[in-house]
C-alpha cells in the first residue's frame, strides 16, 4: 500500500516542499529510506518504529520503503519524523481513513510517541504559506511561533496519537489562535536603561547620534570605564522592531535554534556579544549545513564586540563585506545560503595593551611600538566603516553615588524615532534606510554643505590633521545630528559637533 504525506524542510531560511512517500509491501522485514536524508533524517527510522509501537499502533513487519521527494535535495533536521510515521500508519491501516492529504506535517517524534519541538517552524510555515498551503500540524511547543502568521490553520498537537485522532475525526482540536504582534507588550522592564548610567553625558550623546543614524560606534577607554554598560543600553534606545523586522529576525533565530519557546517571536532588538575566542564560522555563519552566524542573529539589532583588538584579524576582516552589503552569503560544499545581516556594530577597546595610555592616574607601561601594534590589529578599512569613534573615561565616585536624575532611554528613544522618521522620508526612493548607509552619491544629493560648513571642514582638516577618509564620515554624522535637531540644512554647529566625535587614533 502506498501513501503520500506532505511536509517541509529547510534550506537556509527558505522551506521547500518534501513529499514523503511510503510504500509498505510484502517481503522480508526492512526499512529503507531514499531521497538524500542526512543523519538526523536517517535516524528517524528508529524513532518512528518505537513511536508507532508506543502509540498503540502496529509497526509492520514487512518491507517499508520511504522516498523523500525531491530526491536531489539534501534534507536536514528531524522535521520529517511525523510525516514518515503517519505515512507508515496510513499505508498499513487504510481502514482508519485518515485525512492526510489536506495537511502539511512537521514534527520530531520521541520514542514514547509524543511530538517534540523543532527549530525553524516560523520560516517553514512562512514558505509553506507562500506556496499555497494553509493547514498544518506542528508540535505543541512550537505553538507560539505559529500564532504570528496570519491566514493559516495550524494545529499544535502533543503526540502522534493525537494527530491520528485528529485525522480520523475521532477528536476535535482547536486551531492555534492568532496572536497580534506588539513590540511593546512583550518588552519587559529593561534591566539596562540609560538612566542607570551615571555621568558619561558625552558618550550618551554619542550613542544617541549613532543609533539615530545607524552609525557604527567604537568606544575607546580604560578598563572599567563603562563601555559595556553603554553598549547594552543601545537596544533600549533603538526604534521598536516592526512586525516585518521581527519576523525576519525570528526566522534566523528559529533556524539557528536559539528562539526562546515562550515568546515565539523576537520582540526585542537582538544584542549579540560573541566572545573574542569565537571562531570565524561562529561569527559569520557556516558549518556543514551553512548555519547562520552571530552577525545574522544580530540582524536588526546590535553586534557588540568587546575588546575588539583581541578578536583574530580574520574574524574582524570578515565583517567588512557584511557591514557594507548587509547580507552574508555562506557557501559550503553542501549548501549556499544568504542570510540577512543588517546590524549596528558596536565595539570597545582599550587605548593600549595595558589600558592606561593617556590616563592621568596610572602610568602606561607600553612601548610605542606595542601601542601601534595593538591598534593596528583593527585595519583601516574596518575603522572606516565605524563612523563614531569616541573615548570613554571612568566616572568619579561622586558621580556614581549621586542621585541626580539622568535622562531615561525612553526620552532618548523618542528623539531617535523622530530622526529615523526623517531619514525614512528622505530615502523613500533609495534602497537605503539610514544616514550611515549613504555612499558618495547620496552624500552629494542629500548633504549639501553651505560655504561656511565647507570652510569649517577645510580648516579642521589642516589644523586637526584629519585623514581624507574622515571627511565623508564627518558629513554623515553631521547629517544625523541635523536630523536629530529636525533641521533641513546641515548647520556649522552640526559639522563642528561631528568633528568632535572623530577618532584621535592617529596620535
Amino acid at each position, binding site marked *: 500500500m502506498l501513501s503520500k504525506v506532505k511536509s517541509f524542510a529547510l534550506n537556509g531560511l527558505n522551506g521547500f516542499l518534501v513529499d514523503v512517500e511510503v510504500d509498505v509491501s510484502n517481503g522480508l522485514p526492512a526499512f529503507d529510506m531514499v531521497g538524500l536524508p542526512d543523519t538526523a533524517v536517517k535516524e528517524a527510522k528508529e524513532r518512528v518504529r518505537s513511536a508507532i509501537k508506543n502509540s498503540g499502533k502496529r509497526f509492520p513487519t514487512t518491507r517499508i520503503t520511504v522516498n523523500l521527494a525531491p530526491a536531489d535535495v539534501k534534507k536536514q533536521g528531524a522535521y520529517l519524523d511525523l510525516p514518515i510515521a503517519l505515512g507508515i500508519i496510513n499505508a498499513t491501516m487504510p481502514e482508519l481513513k485518515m485525512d492526510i492529504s489536506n495537511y502539511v506535517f512537521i514534527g520530531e517524534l520521541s520514542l514514547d510517541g509524543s511530538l517534540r519541538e523543532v527549530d525553524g517552524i516560523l520560516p517553514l510555515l512562512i514558505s509553506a504559506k507562500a506556496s499555497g498551503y494553509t493547514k498544518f500540524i506542528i508540535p505543541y511547543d512550537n505553538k507560539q511561533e505559529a500564532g504570528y502568521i496570519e491566514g493559516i490553520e495550524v494545529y499544535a498537537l502533543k503526540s502522534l496519537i493525537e494527530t491520528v485522532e485528529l485525522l480520523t475525526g475521532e477528536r476535535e482540536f482547536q486551531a492555534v489562535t492568532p496572536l497580534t504582534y506588539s513590540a511593546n507588550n512583550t518588552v519587559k522592564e529593561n534591566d539596562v536603561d540609560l538612566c542607570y548610567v551615571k555621568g558619561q553625558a558625552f558618550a550618551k550623546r554619542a550613542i544617541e547620534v549613532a543609533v539615530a543614524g545607524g552609525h557604527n560606534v567604537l568606544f575607546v577607554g580604560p578598563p572599567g570605564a563603562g563601555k559595556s554598560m553603554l553598549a547594552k543600553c543601545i537596544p533600549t534606545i533603538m526604534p521598536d522592531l516592526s512586525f516585518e523586522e521581527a519576523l525576519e529576525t525570528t526566522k534566523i533565530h528559529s533556524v539557528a535554534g536559539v528562539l526562546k519557546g515562550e515568546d515565539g517571536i523576537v520582540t526585542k532588538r537582538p544584542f549579540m556579544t560573541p566572545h573574542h575566542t569565537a571562531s570565524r564560522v561562529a561569527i559569520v555563519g557556516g558549518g556543514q549545513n551553512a548555519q547562520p552566524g552571530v552577525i545574522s542573529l544580530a540582524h536588526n539589532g546590535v553586534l557588540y564586540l568587546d575588546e575588539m583588538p583581541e578578536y583574530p584579524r580574520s574574524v574582524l576582516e570578515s565583517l567588512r563585506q557584511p557591514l557594507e552589503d548587509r547580507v552574508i552569503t555562506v557557501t559550503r560544499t553542501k549548501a549556499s545560503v544568504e542570510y540577512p545581516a543588517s546590524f549596528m556594530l558596536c565595539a570597545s577597546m582599550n587605548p593600549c595593551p595595558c589600558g592606561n595610555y593617556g590616563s592621568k592616574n596610572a602610568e602606561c607601561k607600553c612601548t*610605542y611600538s606595542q601601542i601601534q601594534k595593538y591598534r593596528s590589529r583593527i585595519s583601516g578599512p574596518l575603522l572606516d566603516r565605524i563612523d563614531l569613534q569616541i573615548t570613554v573615561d571612568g566616572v568619579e565616585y561622586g558621580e556614581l553615588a549621586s542621585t541626580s536624575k539622568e535622562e531615561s532611554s525612553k526620552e532618548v528613544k523618542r528623539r531617535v524615532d523622530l530622526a529615523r522618521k526623517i531619514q525614512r522620508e528622505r530615502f523613500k526612493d533609495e534602497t537605503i534606510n539610514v544616514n550611515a548607509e549613504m555612499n558618495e552619491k547620496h552624500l552629494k544629493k542629500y548633504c549639501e554643505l553651505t560655504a561656511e560648513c565647507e570652510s569649517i571642514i577645510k*580648516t579642521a582638516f589642516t589644523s586637526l590633521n584629519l585623514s581624507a577618509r574622515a571627511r565623508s564620515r564627518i558629513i554623515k554624522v553631521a547629517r544625523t545630528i541635523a536630523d536629530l535637531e529636525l533641521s533641513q540644512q546641515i548647520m556649522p554647529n552640526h559639522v*563642528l559637533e561631528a568633528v568632535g566625535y572623530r577618532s584621535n587614533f592617529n596620535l
Partner: protein
Amino acid sequence: MINNLFKVVLDSHTSLDYKHKRDIINATLNKSTLNEMVDIAVNYLTNNVKNYKIDLFRESFSNNNYQSILKSYKLKGITVITETDALYPNELKNTPFAPICLYAKGNLNLLASKNKFSIVGSRKTPPQILKLTESISNKLASAGVTIVTGIAVGGDLSAIKGAIETKNVISVLAGGFDFCLSEYNSDYIEKLFKNGLVITEHPPCVKAMPYSYPIRNRIIAGLSMGTLIVSGSHKSGARHTANYALEYGRDVFAFPYLPCTSQGELCNKLIKDGAYLVETASDIAEVCGFDIEKSASLQLSGTEKTVFEVISKGSVSVDAIAEETGLKVFELMPVLTLLEIKGVIVKDGNGEYVATQN
C-alpha cells in the same frame, strides 16, 4: 681633493669602526697621493684590525670602484660632505667624534645657517606638549632659526611639523638613506627632502640599530647652539642629546612638568641641574638672541571664553566641562571643536581636553 675622495671611500667601509677610520685619517693627514694614503691605511689595518680583508680594501680605492661609489650616491640624490668641505658646519667640526662624512639630501644651505637650534623629545609626549612644541618650533623657524631634530613620532615630528612650512628644518637620521622611507614616517621624509634637509653620518646601506640613536644624538647636539628637550623619561634617548649639548657647551632648555609625570622626568631633572625653563618661544629667544614676533592675542567669543577658562584650569573631560558650564553636550561639542581648530586646546589620549597656552 684627494683627501676628500679618500675619506668618502674609507667611510663607505661600513664594517670599520669610527675609531679606526679616525686613526687612519689622522695618520694620512699630510700625504698627498692616494697610493700613499692607501698604503698607510693597509699598514694600519694589518696591525690593528684582525682578519680584515686587505685585498678588498685596497681594491675599493681603484679608479673604477670609487667612481661607481660616487655615481651611486649621485643617482640616489645624496650629497656627501666630508669634514674638510666648506659646507661642513664648523660647530659640528669642533666637537669630539665629529662625523667623517655627512650624507645629505635636500637644501644644503641650511647647514650654513648661523642659528641652528635643536628640539627633541620622546615618542611618548603628551598631546598638549606636542602642540606647544609645534608652535614654538614654528615661531623659531619663522624667525629664521633652523630647527634641528630627529624624525621619530612624538616630539621630533612635532618640531618638524612646526617648521616644515618655513623650510628651516634639518632632520638627522640614525641610519642610511636606503632605509629611511621604510623605517620612518615616509610622508615627512619626502617633505623634508623637498623643503628641508635630511642628513646622516651613515652611508646609504647602513640600517639604523637601537644603539645608533644615542650616537646620532651627538650630531643633533653638535649642530645646534641650544637644545630644547620637550619630553623624556630618565631612560629616554633625549637624555643623550642633553648630555652632549652640555658637554659641547651649548645651552639646554626644557619644558617644566608636573611632579610624578613619567613623560617629563628628564625635563624636570635637567631644570634642577640648571637647564633653562621654557614656557614660550620667547624664553628661548631671549637666551639665544633670536628675534621672534609677538603672538597675536586670542579672539574668543563669550561661550568659547567660558569653556576655555574651565579647560585652562587643568585637563578635563567633556562631561566635566558640561557640568561646570551647564551646557548640554550637543551645545558644548561645537565650541570644543572650534577651540581645537583654533589650536588653543587639544584632545589627549584619554578624550580629555587640555589648554595649550594661557
